[in-house]
């Protein structure tokens, strides 16, 4: 069986089902709408696995699913050497979000990464600890700031309501995904002009670790033909 992991609920699941539906592959949740079981119609040998979007990268990496739908941000943040573990088959055109760095709007002296670095230096001297940036995207943000040569900062973990950490005085800046920027503005924050860390959207990924036997390969070829996608080398 070719296992395909898709988000287990919400708007992301709805849009995923719609995208496959538009390509003649019908996905549906079976049982009642709280039961995490699903089915794929119109093609044999495909099993639907409903998972939290955040767990799909790990399942792809482990090879427990052959294909999976999740965000670019989650793949690149959670998987080291992501492009050797998974192959992106197609961007799906929804779930768009930018990973950015934001600071209080009243920081009139900070507009770029260069400013943030200088502010971090002065902040550490004044407060005795490194300037705190709240995020859940530790790898992406750290890699970005390392590449930019930023010093005197620390990442503090925030798994939700990240914009609130500044008001609560548990962080000075945030690195988070945003689509419209409304939550940032509502929390009196502004986006640094040159700190677009990643543009993310939902993508269909293929696991390079999964067991690709003759049967699953043939199912993959069949599925990708319906989706009008080229078959990658395995």
């Amino acid at each position: 069986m070719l296992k395909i992991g898709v988000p287990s609920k919400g708007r992301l699941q709805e849009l995923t089902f719609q995208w496959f539906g538009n390509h003649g592959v019908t996905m549906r949740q079976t049982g009642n709408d709280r039961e995490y079981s699903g089915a794929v119609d119109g093609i044999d040998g495909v099993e639907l696995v409903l998972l939290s979007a955040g767990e799909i990268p790990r399942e792809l990496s482990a090879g427990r699913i052959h294909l999976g739908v999740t965000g670019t941000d989650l793949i690149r943040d959670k998987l080291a050497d992501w492009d050797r573990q998974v192959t992106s088959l197609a961007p799906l055109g929804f779930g768009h979000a930018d990973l950015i760095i934001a600071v209080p709007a009243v920081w009139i002296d900070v507009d770029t990464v260069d400013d943030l670095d200088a502010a971090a230096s002065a902040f550490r001297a004044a407060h005795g600890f490194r300037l705190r940036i709240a995020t859940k995207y530790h790898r992406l943000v750290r890699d970005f700031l390392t590449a930019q040569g930023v010093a005197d900062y620390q990442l503090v973990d925030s798994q939700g309501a990240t914009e609130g950490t500044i008001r609560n005085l548990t962080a000075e800046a945030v690195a988070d995904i945003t689509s419209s920027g409304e939550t940032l503005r509502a929390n009196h924050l502004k986006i640094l002009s040159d700190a677009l860390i990643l543009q993310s959207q939902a993508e269909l990924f293929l696991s390079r670790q999964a067991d690709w036997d003759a049967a699953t390969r043939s199912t993959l070829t069949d599925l990708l033909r319906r989706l009008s996608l080229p078959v990658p080398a395995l």
Partner: protein
Amino acid sequence: MTTKSAIRAQAETLFAAFRAAGAVPVDADILLPAETLLDLYGEDIRARAYVTSDPLRGEMMLRPDFTVPVVQAHMAHGADPARYCYMGEVFRKQDHLGPRASEYLQVGFEVFDRAAPELADAQVFALFARLLSDLTLRPATGDIGILMAAVRGLSTTDRRKAALLRHIWRPKRFRALLDRFAGRAPMPEARITLLDRLAQDTPEALIAAAGTFTGLRAPEEIAARAAALIEDSATAPIAAPEAALLYDLLSLEAPAQAALTHLRGITPLLPAIAPAVERFATRLEALNANGIDTMTLPFQASHGRTSLEYYDGFVFSFHAADPTLPPVASGGRYDALTAVLGQGRSIPAVGGVIRPGLVTALRGG
């Protein structure tokens, strides 16, 4: 296949050689408090070291190197002068699939001595060169002290010098700052806009106009940096000839004696580097006296700037022919680190480590 026991035997041999050179063996914990390392190396170390948590002691790190615990032990209760050697595993998280080891043995040698730092530099290098002499490794050397002296000697504001010194170990940002201070890079658009607005209003008024105040960074801190930006915008660029010398120094790469001749040639134009250049000359004499041919010894003024270390003087490494292998040995001088960890006290210090696993592999063991 190189076995663990062969590597350990190799490590023991190197360890014995360091003891024979007068070093006292020291032990270090494997679990180190993460905070000390994070405050020293910054967040970057998280990408390289394994972080774990202790229910009572908080975040801990699996020893990524011996320098910090050895310096701490010395600053707490060391003799003066002192020579130490150590042997043990270090742990480095690898973010890429590949052959790089995430756990390997290091054997190290450190000298804490106020008397003759350049002689100590030469002795450490010569000892490493001798122990590795059968492997035909390519040595690399540098001297971060010359670069730091050049920055300190620039005719510009202390603020600009401090900004450059802070980023000596981050070449990309250093270069960006230097380009801006030298007038070679345009001022960012946002900065021009801000300076225009600051010309018409006080920082306090602009802060008030920017909306609801939030966060720990106080209005005074924001205003202080705004004032610094105004001051900086009125500062003349670093004079072109002086900037050219610094760019020249950053890319200086030559055999050590030729590099010395070159540095002596530019010293009259950049007199602040004179003491550092003379220290370099003294070190080369000491290296010659210790059997190192400085006519051929490679020198690179920027060597060691990306090593995630706080080397601030002599730096060296030994490389195998295979460029994909990490250095077989590396080390340098870290006087400033002893001041950071010494709570007010400091002592000149130089040392280095050898990876017995690589030595064994190169010997075909």
